């Protein structure tokens, strides 16, 4: 109690009511008039306000588990069982292995698509990307399988080209041996030239499309990588919480042992 204060009435109660703003309007007016003339009350009000500010820094730790609301589902027993609560992080809803598998799948699809090879010779049409090192024959075949399994935007062009080539070849009724000879023919040379031009044009378009797709995939991979890193950070954080709990249990045990002694 400050001896220099001249407030008439219960000064401590009034001060605390004013501090928490839980006060009648008339009392507030009265006390504010007093405050204007009382440095002691003003100082104490400021100091208690600072205490309140420090109190606001104290927050309880996040509980690892909350109340299981299944209790209400079993009204006959009225039994409350500790179980998962909303306080658990959403990470626990999806197993870590599943997240890792999803990440690996995305990466695998991206890598597979980047190594795409399409051939068109005796076995088909081929386009090679430069994003990865040249693939082996086996990989090329695998790449072709990927291309065949997936609908591609240039599929219509390829189909048209193939149809045209087949049509042109059908017009040449000569057997293969004769075909080699006829290749020297001017008409055949023109045909081959047109075919090469078509193939070049098609390859250019396909490379553009592929470059675009690679860029999209790279963006997706980057986004997934960031998400995975965040996941790892959260897992580490959860592990930290578990260790903290273990630490507290040990601490608690030590206190109890000390009490027994």
């Amino acid at each position: 109690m400050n001896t220099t204060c001249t407030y008439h009435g219960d000064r401590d109660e009034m001060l605390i009511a004013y501090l928490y703003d839980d006060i009648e309007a008339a009392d507030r007016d009265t006390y504010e008039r007093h405050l204007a003339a009382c440095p002691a009350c003003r100082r104490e009000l400021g100091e208690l306000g600072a205490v309140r500010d420090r109190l606001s820094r104290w927050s309880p730790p996040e509980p690892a588990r909350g109340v299981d609301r299944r209790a209400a589902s079993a009204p006959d027993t009225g039994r409350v069982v500790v179980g998962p609560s909303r306080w658990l992080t959403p990470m626990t809803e999806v197993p870590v292995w599943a997240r890792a598998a999803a990440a690996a799948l995305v990466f695998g699809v991206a890598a597979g698509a980047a190594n795409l090879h399409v051939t068109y010779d005796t076995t088909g049409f081929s386009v090679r990307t430069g994003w990865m090192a040249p693939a082996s024959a086996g990989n090329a075949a695998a790449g072709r399988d990927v291309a065949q399994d997936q609908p591609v935007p240039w599929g219509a062009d390829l189909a048209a080209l193939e149809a045209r080539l087949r049509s042109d070849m059908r017009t040449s009724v000569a057997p293969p041996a004769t075909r080699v000879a006829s290749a020297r023919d001017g008409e055949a040379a023109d045909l081959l030239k047109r075919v090469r031009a078509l193939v070049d044009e098609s390859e250019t378009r396909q490379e553009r499309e592929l470059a675009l797709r690679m860029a999209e995939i790279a963006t997706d991979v980057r986004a997934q990588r960031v998400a995975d890193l965040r996941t790892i950070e959260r897992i580490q954080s959860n592990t930290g919480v578990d260790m903290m709990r273990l630490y507290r249990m040990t601490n608690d045990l030590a206190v109890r042992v000390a009490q027994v002694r």
Partner: protein
Amino acid sequence: MTWTDEELVARSIRGDSESFNELVLRWERPIYSLAYRTIGREEDARDVCQETFLRAFRGLPAFRGQAKFSSWLYRIALNLCRDWMRRQRRAPIVQAPEDVDLVELAAAREPSESIEDLVARNDLSKVVERAMARLPEEQRTAIILKEYQGLTFQEIADLVGCPLSTVKTRLYQGLTVLRRELAKDPVTTSR
């Protein structure tokens, strides 16, 4: 649609278990915080929180709505905290390690917070926790209910069963003691 506590209570009494779940969702955190700040132990605070809702659930048919549902819950929780302290026969334990616990710090770290700020915040929190633990139970309870639970003086008086003026006196005395205790600590005086 958002139901009031009283509406949810009425529906729970009529057998709507989802309504009671909603009440638990709404109040589990405040009750846990109250219990933790009163008894100072996370595990026990969780048990008190659990037991509070269990007793509330069992006592629903007898709840006549004379008081607010939250006040009723607070009363149950406070009684359980008192029982716990009586069993312990001593002041609440403050589990503050002497050294900085890096694992705990890492778990509590906020994204943009520097490690220096984090250590300072943790220290300050522990200092406040220790100072609160030194208060007499009545003063500590009054401060917790007012400062952290946001109850009015009248609600606190009804809850703990004492006159309004006593609540204010306990708060004044408690804050005065805290001011003195916190002033001793360099962590709080330097900030």
